[in-house]
């Protein structure tokens, strides 16, 4: 199975649906385009709208390995691309020296910087193992320099290792970049990518998501929880609950034996969905109104 086998946006939606990821036709179209044009897909949106989950679902549905690179402040090429296995290099050096005594230094050096001591990090692995899905998660956390480095890799799908030579992907990997938009991604990187903003799903889709991801939760409960969560999202909280929180909350309620959502059970399990103290206080105070309204 390769990325080229997906015939249409509907086909992609269908495949993703079978893994439990329900997407709307907008996302299906953009995802399909990313696959057929071999362009990286840049997903932005609130936390918890399923950006990372899309990459996982893509990998599962296309039967490709998922290689994940989590970005953070200060990440550099050694953590993204490759590094040398220093302890083993030293051991090797000592071993060679004790067995053979003085050998040809150049030969020895060649042996030290060879494939067996190379630690492939996510980006290099993706290029080598492609076809694969490379997830570059939370790119907004990385620095400008890292973005520039990434742009270079994503433009050519190859990297060069001075001691070893160039590694090029035979087929470009499927690349998904996600950003929570705490920082604007550089325009040059954006130009390389297809861009899509993921919104929170609508009522029906979110109910369907809960039903498919947590089948043990009853239809009634799922609908009640989703309705309440969607009201919370409009309530101007510090951190609006995402789909992951909806799922957690529905599961939590189901676990304590709730069949019908009421103020008391909602208040007891609120921590599954609302994770700031200020928010929790506000929601608790307004819970009966929100459940009724």
């Amino acid at each position, binding site marked *: 199975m390769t990325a080229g086998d997906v015939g249409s*946006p509907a086909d992609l939606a269908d495949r993703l649906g079978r893994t439990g990821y329900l997407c709307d*036709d*907008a996302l299906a*179209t*953009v995802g*399909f*385009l990313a696959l*057929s*044009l071999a*362009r990286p897909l840049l997903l*932005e949106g609130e936390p918890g709208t399923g950006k990372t989950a899309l990459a996982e679902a893509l990998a599962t549905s296309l039967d490709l390995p998922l290689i994940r690179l989590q970005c953070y402040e*200060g990440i*550099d090429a050694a953590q993204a691309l490759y590094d*040398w296995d*220093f302890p083993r*290099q*030293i051991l090797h*050096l*000592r071993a*060679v*020296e004790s067995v053979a005594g*003085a050998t040809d*230094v150049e030969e*020895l*050096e060649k042996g*030290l910087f060879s494939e067996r001591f190379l630690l492939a990090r996510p980006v290099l692995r993706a290029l080598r193992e492609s076809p694969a899905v490379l997830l570059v998660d939370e790119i907004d956390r990385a*620095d*400008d*320099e*890292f973005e520039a480095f990434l742009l270079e890799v994503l433009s050519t799908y190859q990297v060069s290792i001075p001691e070893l030579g160039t590694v090029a992907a035979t087929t470009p990997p499927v690349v998904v970049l996600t950003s929570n*938009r*705490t*920082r*604007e991604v*550089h*325009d040059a990187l*954006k*130009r390389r990518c*297809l*861009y*899509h*903003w993921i919104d929170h799903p609508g009522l029906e889709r979110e109910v369907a998501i809960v039903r498919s991801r947590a089948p043990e939760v009853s239809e009634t409960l799922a609908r009640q929880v989703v309705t309440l969560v969607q009201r919370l999202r409009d309530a101007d909280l510090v951190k609006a609950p995402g789909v992951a929180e909806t799922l957690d909350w529905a599961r939590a309620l189901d676990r304590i034996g709730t069949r019908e959502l009421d103020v008391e059970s909602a208040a007891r399990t609120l921590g599954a969905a609302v994770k700031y103290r200020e928010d929790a206080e506000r929601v608790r105070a307004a819970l009966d109104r929100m459940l009724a309204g």
Partner: protein
Amino acid sequence: MNGVMSAATAPDELLLGFTRALQSAGLPVTSDRSRTFLRAVATVGLGDRRATYWAGRATLCTTPEHFAAYDRVFTGWFLDETEGGRAGPPPALPPVVQAPLGADDESSGSPGDDEGEVVRVAASDVELLQHRDIATMDPAERARLAALFGRLAPTPPRRVSYRRAAARRGVVDTHATLRRTLDRMGEPVEIARRHRTTRTRRVVLLVDVSGSMSSYADALLRLAHRVSQRSAASRGGRGPRVEVFSMGTRVTRLTRAMRLRDVDKAIVAAGETVPDWSGGTRLGEALKAFLDRWGQRGLARGAVVVVFSDGWERGDAVLLGEQMARLRRLAHRVVWVNPHKGAAGYQPVQQGMAAALPHVDEFVAGHSLAAFRKVLRVIGDA
């Protein structure tokens, strides 16, 4: 280029016309983006309007802020056509309205007006001058104060660089250690270490020069001059790491003027450059103009951006809030210096200030030399 579409228009022309319409609506459409758009539409098929819509949005928009304009142009370009004739040209940009010059209703007096007047004695005047609200000073006091700016010692903020350099302390430089070991055929050697170097961070100063800030303008420019001179000196003349802009009804770049050595000449040069001294304030529009023309391209990226303003907004406070949010996503730190914050009982209730505050990292006072000293510390530590 916005001519009426005839039924015989070739698909490519129709699509390229659409990208041009988007461009005039303010989207950053480039030729490579247009090409990707054409390929994307060819992949999903032009017959499918919804797919065309999403293909265009994914290839031509780069932030959610573009979606509204995109929707407008898309509707105008594709949908009206099928409903019999395109109705009129694509929506034009809203006309730019200039606020009238002059500061009539804003000069109702600064909160610090009659404070500290009691201490107008010649005592240790240098010490006193430093803490006096600049707006309450007479010309002679201002002249004496001007001489004190030389005492300010701004330190530029620094950031961790991507590069690493050999050092006595720091993480083990495995590569270098291995090479040293290799040179000695495996004999243990001293471990090489390296650490990350630092570089100075860019500082961007945005000075509000509208009527309500006029009593502080001279002092703020002196401060800006001091900051840019120090930075230029510490960088050995390798281009400015400090950028200065004036904001009023429009934005003017003062960086060049501020590079003149002599402070008085620099201020005269700035005065000649700025067309809207003591005019109205349209902070939101001015900030947008700054971000569109300079900020987004890289000037504000990763920089410490300092806004000197009282937050009086004549324009739309919502726009100001949006632009501040945009600024914060680009900048490393956003500092807002408000001269009125120094006054007792000050509340940031002006519409503009209230809209901007959620997107500000540091909110500090800036009414006296002592306050400026603190501002410089905040910038240096950012």
